[in-house]
């Protein structure tokens, strides 16, 4: 314990150095601003800004990049709430209630609660990284392909619960998501499948293009159809800050989301996304009146936002303790470290304690700065909503297209987004919800790959999912949740939890 304080003191002495403090602020600011541009998520932002860090000392460079990461993650939520465009997978859930709140004129409250919840989650996650980083790593290593597959099964069950409307429609949408996720290259044979000979599809459909199309573009089309209503919404904008009731409602959700996010974040791969979806499911499940969800329930913003922030922070654990990047952003951080002559690995903690603890301490400072930057900005963002829609929507479209183009520097992605926009509009007209589809799309590849790995390792013995304890536990949990979801349907009753 004493050692922990000693280490944290070292970390803060590094992070609070004026240069590093400045870089942390700059990173968080730049990250927020770029993250707010729809489509430019944390990965693209860091990739673009990587060269800027060349001239900096390594610790400062990493602190700045980490700042960009949280900033961009947070910026992604801002667009999810304001214009229904999730910047990255984890903020898909935020659109569900966040955008509804914005429509009711409560965008300010949604943004503020997202910032405060994220800050709380960030504080807790910093302590988790500092105190439990090492032991949690060994837990993450227990997760083999079989365990991941079972975890993804649980994720799919969450997706059913996300649905606002009918369960069969939700299941259909998950399946659509799974099918879309199968476009690309077969992991085992390297053969392309369902690409129709289009070389750009050989690595699959991009998440950002799909999400922007079915959420953002289709929302714009629908808004243009009912322009008068949109103007009404804009006039309703009320208080910028959450009310006392909002805070009372949100607090328990923030705490639960933080715990869930801290745990799931350490799992390489889909941890951040699963934590947001998981937290939403949990909040909806334990709410006294689940019917409020999807119509602007503040818990539906507070829980997932806290969860994804906690998870994005604990996702540094595998990188810092093992030197293995768990996701694309972390892979970029590894690249940044190697460019600066640091080879990340299990010994970074002992060999370069100033770097390790400086980065941990800067996480907390970065989160503090995000709150300082974002609370005053809430007013500005909300005012943006008052811009007449005929001026706002072309801007959104142009920024979206720029964002999508910069992902791979190809116009193909922009065209695809347009097509998904049309598909999304068709979904709206038929009351088909895109959120379960996106969860299926994001988790699909992880599920398939791990299923095939697990089966290869077990030489085709499917019982492996039940004989490994962690995997069996997850499968059992999924089965229970599914039965709870399906039984009332069989009885012909409306299930208040899953259907409203």
């Amino acid at each position, binding site marked *: 314990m004493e050692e922990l304080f000693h280490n944290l003191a070292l970390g803060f002495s590094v992070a609070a150095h004026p240069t590093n403090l400045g870089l942390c602020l700059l990173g968080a600011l730049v990250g927020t601003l770029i993250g707010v541009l729809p489509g430019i998520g944390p990965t693209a932002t860091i990739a673009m800004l990587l060269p800027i860090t060349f001239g900096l000392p390594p610790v400062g460079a990493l602190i700045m990049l980490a700042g960009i990461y949280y900033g961009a993650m947070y910026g992604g939520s801002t667009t999810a709430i304001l214009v229904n465009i999730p910047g990255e997978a984890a903020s898909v859930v935020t659109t569900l209630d966040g955008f509804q709140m914005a429509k009711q004129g409560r965008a300010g409250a949604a943004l503020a609660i997202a910032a405060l919840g994220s800050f709380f989650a960030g504080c807790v996650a910093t302590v988790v990284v500092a105190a439990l980083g090492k032991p949690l790593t060994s837990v993450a290593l227990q997760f*083999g392909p079989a365990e991941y597959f079972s975890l993804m099964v649980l994720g799919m069950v969450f997706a059913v619960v996300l649905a606002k409307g009918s369960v069969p429609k939700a299941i259909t949408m998950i399946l659509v998501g799974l099918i879309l996720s199968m476009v690309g290259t077969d992991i085992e044979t390297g053969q392309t499948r369902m690409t129709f000979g289009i070389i750009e599809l050989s690595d699959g459909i991009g998440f950002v293009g799909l999400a922007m199309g079915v959420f953002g573009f289709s929302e714009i089309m629908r808004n243009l159809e009912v322009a008068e209503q949109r103007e009404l919404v804009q006039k309703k904008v009320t208080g910028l800050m959450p009310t006392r009731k909002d805070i009372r409602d949100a607090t328990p959700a923030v705490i639960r989301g933080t715990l869930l996010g801290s745990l799931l974040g350490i799992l390489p791969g889909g941890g951040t996304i699963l934590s947001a979806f998981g937290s939403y499911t949990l909040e909806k499940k334990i709410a006294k009146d689940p019917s409020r969800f999807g119509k602007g329930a503040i818990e539906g913003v507070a829980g997932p936002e806290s969860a994804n922030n906690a998870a994005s922070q604990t996702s540094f654990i595998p990188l810092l303790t093992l030197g*293995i990047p*768990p996701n694309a952003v972390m892979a970029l951080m590894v690249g940044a470290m190697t460019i600066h002559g640091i080879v990340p*690995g*299990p010994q970074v903690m002992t060999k370069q304690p100033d770097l390790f603890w400086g980065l941990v301490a800067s996480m907390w400072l970065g989160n503090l700065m995000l709150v300082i930057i974002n609370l005053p900005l809430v007013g500005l963002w909300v005012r943006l909503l008052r811009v007449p829609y005929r001026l706002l929507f072309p801007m959104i479209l142009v920024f979206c297209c720029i964002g999508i183009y910069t992902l791979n520097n190809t116009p193909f992605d922009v065209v695809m987004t347009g097509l998904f926009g049309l598909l999304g509009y068709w979904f709206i007209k038929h009351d088909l919800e895109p959120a379960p589809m996106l969860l299926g799309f994001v988790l699909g590849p992880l599920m398939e790959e791990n299923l095939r790995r697990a089966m290869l390792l077990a030489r085709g013995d499917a019982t492996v999912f039940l004989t490994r304890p962690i995997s069996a536990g997850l499968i059992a949990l999924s089965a229970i949740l599914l039965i709870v979801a399906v039984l009332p349907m069989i009885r012909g009753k409306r299930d208040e939890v899953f259907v409203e």
Partner: protein
Amino acid sequence: MKKLLLALGAALLATVPAAAQSDYPTRPITVIVPFAAGGPTDTVTRIVGEHMSRTLGQQLVVENVVGAGGTTASTRAMRATPDGYTIITGHMGTHAASVGLYPKLAYDPRKDFEPIGLIAGTPILILAKKDFPAKDLKEFIAYVKANGSKLNEAHAGVGSVSFTTCLLLNHLLGVKPTLIPFTGTGPSMNALVAGQVDYMCDQIVNAVPQVQAGTIKAYAVATPQRNPALPDVPTTVEAGLPDYQTSAWNALFAPKGTPKPILDKLSAALDKALSDETVRKRLLDLGSDIPEGKARGQEALAAHVKAEIDKWTPIIKAAGIEAK
């Protein structure tokens, strides 16, 4: 009239490059990197690119174009205007193994590109999980031969460096382990550290910290000389598998038809970067081998590409792996 205009246009076009060549470069040069930012190819390109920018007096701007094992980016580079303002970092996969892997490959690395020069190679290590029951490469070979199909080999995806280089190893040993595919070197390394798979081949830069920390074992490095980053790991020559020689090389190419004076300027700038002490130190710290003397330059790269294609194509065909 139309003909006259065309002739005039052609004459104009013919004079423009000549003028442009002497004061090349007058604007930033785009270097396409066919892999994600932060990966080994990207890192190596950025390190030499930064030095080359200073020599050439214009910025080398890295553009990461990912997809289809780097062949998307290579196809785009092939189709770029050959004026020296678009070049590409090709590597073992995009400019050699791709020929065997993709029968419908849109380009021929030997014919559609002008070589500029090799940048650096990353040696390949034979790696195994921490509790693999072999203390040196001889025991490893014996054990793998005895247990063949019972063992699990991890790789970072069909067509990746770890995939192709391990095909060669399995080919030399005459074994067919179960191949467990991962998406990228991060997840495959994670599986090896966790002991979920038995062995794999990977670039030294990814493995050094794990080997030093004792979380995995390294049996040999597939180069003629030991690597300063891991001085205790023997070479395959010393350890008894001299035929296993492979390195994930990276090199600069320009689209076919780029004028020779421009290519020479780029080659000279690359040569200067590879002689610079700071650049060398950064590359060596990553475990890279830097080509020296005759191994540098345009002719050496052209010969290397040809030799590599001849080496990998039969191995890939023999393994029956073919992407569409």
